[in-house]
């Protein structure tokens, strides 16, 4: 039963990783920006939700606040940080360092105002009930499952069926041609940041109400998203989501084999192996490096 319990926990973590990593992959795929400040988006959304709840807001309003904050931060990074850099030079590393710096600064800012410890709120949803003998599942698990499936369906529909979604996919393949067809690359990249940042919100809120959130989660989420994007195949949203799910599962399941301390390392051994032996990832196109 322990294994099933761990698998359930793994799926729950993995689903949230999947969404967040999909956001990262969406931004990277469309704009080629390695947006490692994505982890900061995650904790910003979590703390915004928490603050709103503590001020007595309804959970739906609080979620909206979290969404607004996350999207605003994504747009801020796109317009005031990445765009100026890309205007004058914009090598991969310059953008990466700028993003990294912004992530560190934002994490420090949150720590300054809210402290470095865990912050959480208790909801009736998170109280676990015994589903099978020895298997405890909180109702929030089903909520998470529903939310993740819904969001994925929505984002897939959007990318495949709408003009803007088609534009986003075109942006990653050939920005020059896009401009020639009269589409605004700038507006599409802003759209990528809006969608990508929004994808971090469900994970942030569900983490806040289940395990609690802390500023250091920003770095952790950043690492997981980055690992999932590489393992899934750079540019593939579905690959990143799948890899996020796998990373969450691995992180929880290795506990049954080795000590807890090794669980994070297991993910990175996997990452390192993928880069060396299968750099195109699970679902990447050949020659994508």
């Amino acid at each position, binding site marked *: 039963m322990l294994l099933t319990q761990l698998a359930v926990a793994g799926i729950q973590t993995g689903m949230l990783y999947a969404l967040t990593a999909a956001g990262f992959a969406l931004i*990277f795929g469309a704009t080629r920006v*390695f947006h490692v400040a994505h982890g900061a988006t995650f904790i910003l959304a979590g703390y915004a939700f928490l603050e709103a709840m503590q001020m007595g807001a309804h959970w739906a309003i609080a979620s909206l606040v979290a969404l607004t904050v996350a999207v605003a931060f994504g747009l801020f990074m796109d317009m005031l*940080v990445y765009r*100026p*850099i890309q205007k*004058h*030079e914009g*090598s*991969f*590393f*310059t*953008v*990466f*360092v*700028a*993003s*990294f*710096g*912004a*992530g*560190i*600064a*934002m*994490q*420090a*800012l949150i*720590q*300054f105002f809210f402290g*470095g410890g865990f912050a959480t709120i208790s909801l009736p949803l998170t109280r676990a009930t015994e589903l099978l003998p020895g298997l405890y599942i909180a109702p929030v698990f089903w909520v998470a499952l529903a939310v993740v499936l819904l969001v994925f369906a929505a984002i897939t529909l959007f990318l495949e069926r709408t003009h803007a979604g088609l534009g986003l996919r075109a942006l990653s393949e050939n920005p020059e041609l896009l401009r020639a067809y009269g589409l605004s690359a700038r507006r599409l990249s802003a759209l990528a940041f809006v969608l990508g940042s929004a994808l971090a919100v469900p994970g942030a809120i569900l983490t806040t109400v289940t395990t609690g959130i802390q500023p250091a989660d920003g*770095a952790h989420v950043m*690492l997981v998203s*980055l*690992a999932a994007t*590489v393992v899934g195949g*750079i540019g593939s949203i579905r690959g990143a989501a799948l890899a996020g799910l796998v990373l969450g599962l691995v992180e929880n399941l290795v506990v049954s084999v080795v*000590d807890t*301390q*090794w669980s*994070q*390392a297991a993910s*990175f*051994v996997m*990452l*390192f192996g993928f*880069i*060396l032996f299968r*750099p195109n990832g699970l679902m990447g196109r050949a020659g994508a*490096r």
Partner: protein
Amino acid sequence: MIAYLVNLATLIAIFGIAATSLNLLIGYAGIFSIAHAMFFGIGAYVAAQVALTFSADFLVAALAAAVAAAALSLCLALPALRVRGEYFVAASLGLQMMASTLFAEAHGFTGGVGGLVGIPPTRILGFDVASPDAFLVLALACLALTLLAVRTLMRGSFGRSLMALRDSESAAEAFGKDVRALKTLAVVIGCFFVGIAGALFAFHMAFVNVESFTLEQSVVLMAMVIIGGAGTLTGPLVGVIALLSLPAALSFLPFIPSTQIGTVQQFIYGALMTLLMIFRPSGLVGLSRGVR
């Protein structure tokens, strides 16, 4: 006060060596490693073990530390040869995370989270260099040697080939440069020097544990190089001095509670990295040429 300044100067010399060696990778070879704290740690642990079990002579311990770091740097050279850009950054990140876990868990060699304590004071060929002043001279001498070595290397054929490689790998290859050998050599040399820095660090602190060799430390080292100016000889030093003097400067400001100094410091260097990349990507010292 004097003791404090001597301590700060010693740390500046140690991190000066570490940042200069990282600059060899980031600034000259275009290998964007965020696993440098790993090799700093390997140097420190090896020097500590040599001092604890075999000999506290600095030359022996530092040489062992540097050789161990250089040998293990092949773990980093492997992905550097196979992938570039974001893939390499991700690979070095993975390596750093594995190393942090190993440092914390390999109790036999690293002492686990508790670390290695009671590292004996070092000596050189029988001369005692345990006093803070003498140790500062030793650290400064090592820094000077490192700077001299990097300067000589970068002015010679190796350095020029390396920079050609950084600017355009395919062009360098077309001119008959052995890309694989050059990259491997750059990684090995960079990690050799950070091994020495690790040895100095172990003797200076007389105590090492995993806290000093985590991803955060790698990021701080990267910030030192980038803020100072990657690809310049003096840039990393300027970055080291700026970042290490920051906590001291902040403690003079009355409105920041002392428990928050670390957080404020983190905010400042994070914001500084972002602002520099927007307005002056070549760093404080760098020419207006841009980091590549």
